[in-house]
């Protein structure tokens, strides 16, 4: 079930909200029950995989807290089980057939990938490591831990929430009107990002990437990459905003996941603005334990290489994701090697252009069906023959308008401009006082965005979130 679907918006969500407020003593139980239902609707009996993950992390968590004897082996066992489950469901086919070239069999082919497994596995692992490090208390209530891991707003596409972020809120929270206001605004903006922007871009990107590369003109290949760059940003950013909004309405503050990555002036900065919950996860649980940048340049480069290799692998069991991860890792390393100093001397426009070109090329591999397809699509950008599908086969006025909107809305310009008129959703000082009329305009904006998005959804033009497959 996706947030931008009829069944979620108009059935699941209202029924859940009404139960949530009608059962004051059972709000976490209600949240857990609906979260399990949410997953069951999408994945049926693969719910058992998530329940197994919860059980593994709950039991392991009891033995990894500081002061418990044998907590090191318990952590190792807990993490191994998490990784084993992820490897089996997500990577076994790739490992067996692509890496080890083993003959196909039922155990390695046709293994169903439970949606969101990368997200809830990483949340479970972060819980164990945080408890082990003493950064979080072990959770004695299996229901509370289950509510954390299975919480439906961020269950299947993030952001990846640390247990310490929500541990206190799971025990005690006060939901104020401003939570609801900001939550509603986040949700509405995220829904509009997804339905109005991402889905419109998706139609073009999917149509172009669905064609054989040699059937495309160079400009069309570029249009495919451009629209996909906007699609993936607004799709994922939109989902994260909806998750954050729903979390706020329920009394939880999820971390920010995107911060206008397309205005970055380097790839290093890009990763401080793109999928923050994943990059900080890798930083805190992999990069720093590997030594981070404390062991000299060569080990720093090695660590960066490994982290971006893992980032690529995390996104999918395919060579094109690995190439995408290493592509970014390569530029992170050369920026660290000294290219960042060269960048600093450049005009800001050139710095942004450099970042966008690197990110753009990365998205070609990210979107491609496989590595060969990615290379062919990239090569097509430089095929200046007349034959092939022109951009006009894929563009209409709606697409052009949304493309223009996407350019503007991928920068903070509108957010800055709107601050004079509405009380905007905020992450840090989000309780800052604003005049009442600004809240009124904010509610009006949310209502307009939800109504317009709903019209598109009801008209049957929505599509699933692409980040599900990760």
């Amino acid at each position, binding site marked *: 079930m996706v947030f931008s679907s009829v069944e979620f918006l108009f059935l699941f969500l*209202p*029924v859940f909200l009404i139960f949530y*407020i009608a059962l004051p003593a059972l709000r976490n139980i209600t949240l857990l029950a609906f979260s399990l239902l949410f997953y069951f609707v999408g994945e049926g009996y693969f719910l058992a995989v998530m329940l197994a993950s919860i059980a593994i992390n709950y039991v392991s968590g009891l033995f990894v807290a500081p002061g418990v004897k044998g907590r090191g082996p318990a952590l190792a066992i807990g993490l191994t089980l998490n990784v084993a489950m992820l490897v089996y469901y997500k990577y076994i086919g790739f490992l067996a057939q692509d890496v080890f070239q083993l003959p196909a069999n039922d155990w390695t082919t046709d293994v169903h990938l439970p949606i969101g497994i990368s997200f809830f596995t990483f949340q479970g692992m972060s819980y164990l490591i945080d408890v082990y490090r003493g950064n979080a208390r072990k959770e004695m209530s299996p229901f509370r831990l289950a509510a954390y891991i299975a919480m439906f707003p961020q269950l299947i596409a993030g952001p990846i929430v640390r247990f310490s972020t929500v541990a206190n809120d799971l025990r005690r929270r*006060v939901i104020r009107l401003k939570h609801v206001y900001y939550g509603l605004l986040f949700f509405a903006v995220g829904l509009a990002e997804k339905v109005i922007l991402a889905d419109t871009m998706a139609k073009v990107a999917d149509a172009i990437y669905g064609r054989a590369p040699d059937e495309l003109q160079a400009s069309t290949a570029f249009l495919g990459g451009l629209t996909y760059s906007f699609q993936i940003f607004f799709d994922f950013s939109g989902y994260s905003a909806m998750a954050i909004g729903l979390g706020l309405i329920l009394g939880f503050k999820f971390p920010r996941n995107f911060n206008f990555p397309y205005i970055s002036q380097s790839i290093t900065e890009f990763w401080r603005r793109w999928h923050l919950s994943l990059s900080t996860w890798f930083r805190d649980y992999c990069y720093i334990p590997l030594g981070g940048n404390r062991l000299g340049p060569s080990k720093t480069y090695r660590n960066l290489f490994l982290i971006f290799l893992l980032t690529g692998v995390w996104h999918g069991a395919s060579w094109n994701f690995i190439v995408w991860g290493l592509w970014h890792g390569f530029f992170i390393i050369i920026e660290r090697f000294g290219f960042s100093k060269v960048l600093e001397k450049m005009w800001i426009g050139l710095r942004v252009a450099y970042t966008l070109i690197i990110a753009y090329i990365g998205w070609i591999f990210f979107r491609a069906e496989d590595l060969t397809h990615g290379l062919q699509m990239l090569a097509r950008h430089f095929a200046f023959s007349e034959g092939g599908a022109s951009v006009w086969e894929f563009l209409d006025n709606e697409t052009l308008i949304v493309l223009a909107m996407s350019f503007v809305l991928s920068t903070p310009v509108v957010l800055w401009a709107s601050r004079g008129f509405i009380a905007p959703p905020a992450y840090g000082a989000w309780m800052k006082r604003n005049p009442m009329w600004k809240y009124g305009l904010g509610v009006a904006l949310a209502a307009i965005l939800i109504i317009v998005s709903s019209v598109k959804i009801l*008209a049957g033009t929505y599509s699933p979130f692409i980040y599900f497959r990760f």
Partner: protein
Amino acid sequence: MKIERVRFEPLSLAAILALGVLFAIPLLGLFQDEEDLARRQNRALNEAPEWSTLVSEPSRFFAEGRAWLSDRALFSVDASVNYRKFKYYGLGDSPAANVAREGDLVLPIATDAANIDYVSVTGSCPAEQYWDQMTQSLTNGWAEINRVAELEGLSTFGVIVPSKPVLYADRLPRSIPSEIRAQCVYTAENESPAVRIADSFPDTLTYPLADFMAERDVDHFYPLENFHADGMAASRAAQSLIYLSSLEPFREPEFTIREGNADMEPALGFARRVNFQRPDYASAADRSNILDREVQQGARLRGNQISAFFNANAADPRRVAIIANSFGARIAPDVASHYAETVQINTNGMNRQTLIRMFRYLMDGSFDQILFVMHEPGYYNRVRLFADAMLEAISLEPDENAGARVADVSFGPVSFSEFDARGWLPPGQNTELRWSKGGRPAFIDIPRSLFGEGNSIQMRVRLFGPEVSDERWARILVCGQEDADITDRLNSSLEPQILEIEYDAECGSRMTIEFQSSEQPSGADLGLTQDRRQLGIRVDEIQRVSRR
């Protein structure tokens, strides 16, 4: 679980309750009148899922539940219609994926919005490589029609009505691939099969493209917003036909611009009022219920397949039948203004037996002329279909070289774009056998877009022959590569084989399945038909299989 301390500020509680209630408003749609809703959606609504499947097949239960809810959500129809209107009027775009638009020129490009294969355009503008075969097949088919009619003492005439993709080939929307647009321009400017066959039978068949071209820029001539040629264009087609079929002069009408509904509503999703050039004789003939009932009962047809007219002031006193597709309804009033009695029969959706029965009735002596009206897309299929049915109606064997009963599958790309919701070709098409001639290859050409991810094509294939022997062989090639497994199965059994073919990535954008076979017995040898030509491979019951 220990009781959690989760508290709400009173206002936040009210706000969340309000949100819950507001988001639930579309659920009020569950209380709508289902019959009215189905009528508005012009289709049967999805049924509620069986509760028993919740346990046995939860994914199916929720998928069916999703479809059930989506059909009934309040405002869903209005949202769809208004969104489409906004796209059409507000943005100047096409409101549906299977409709192309540029300015006023609106035309369907595919029958299925989920599978844009441009078959609605390429049907009018076939690739030049097929022209010779098409012309040959058309020539044979039309000759058969004339021969049968002559034997029965009837005269037959036909008009191939130019369609928008050819008539406005130079103005087709840019969303249509340039090679298809170029193909249409080439078709319009050169001796296409329609031009050639009309030249071959100048006394009985007409293709008034040049006349249409001369007037195409007259306001509302076609009109551009309509699928069918209507108003002035239909009148010109009728005029062109009657010029052949009647010795009496056709009275040149006066035209008046009148508003009416464009016939693209099913594709656009909303009704659209446009202008038509209506001829002044539109009411010259009266509808004849007596004649209508007579033909209904005589040919055992449904009432909505027939329109009958009686004209007391007709220039030509004869009784004619117009055999056509949906276009016949546009041209019938024009023809009825000239003849004393006109019966227009829409053959769309008719199965083979009904067609044969209809021709038997029409050829029993009660009609003076049969007028064939064929709209350009797919006219070559109709000529073959009609010829075949007429032959069967009088139990006559076809000429050896006729392209009627034994269809040349290699004649052109067989388009399988019209799978219905269950993955089968629509009724009438699926039962149509596709035979290859013995000793000749046959092709099925399927666009990649049709497959979708994880889909495959399944078909029943049989190599004819009385026994398994070395002389009896078949070979199946997928994109030029032999599929040894399929070939072996086909050669080792006399029984039909169900073959499943998955999309081969090496095929590129289209997958061609080639059937080769030894020369086989004829249908007559096998006692199946009276056809004495050698058969090859029979392919039928083609369906798309979804793996999802």
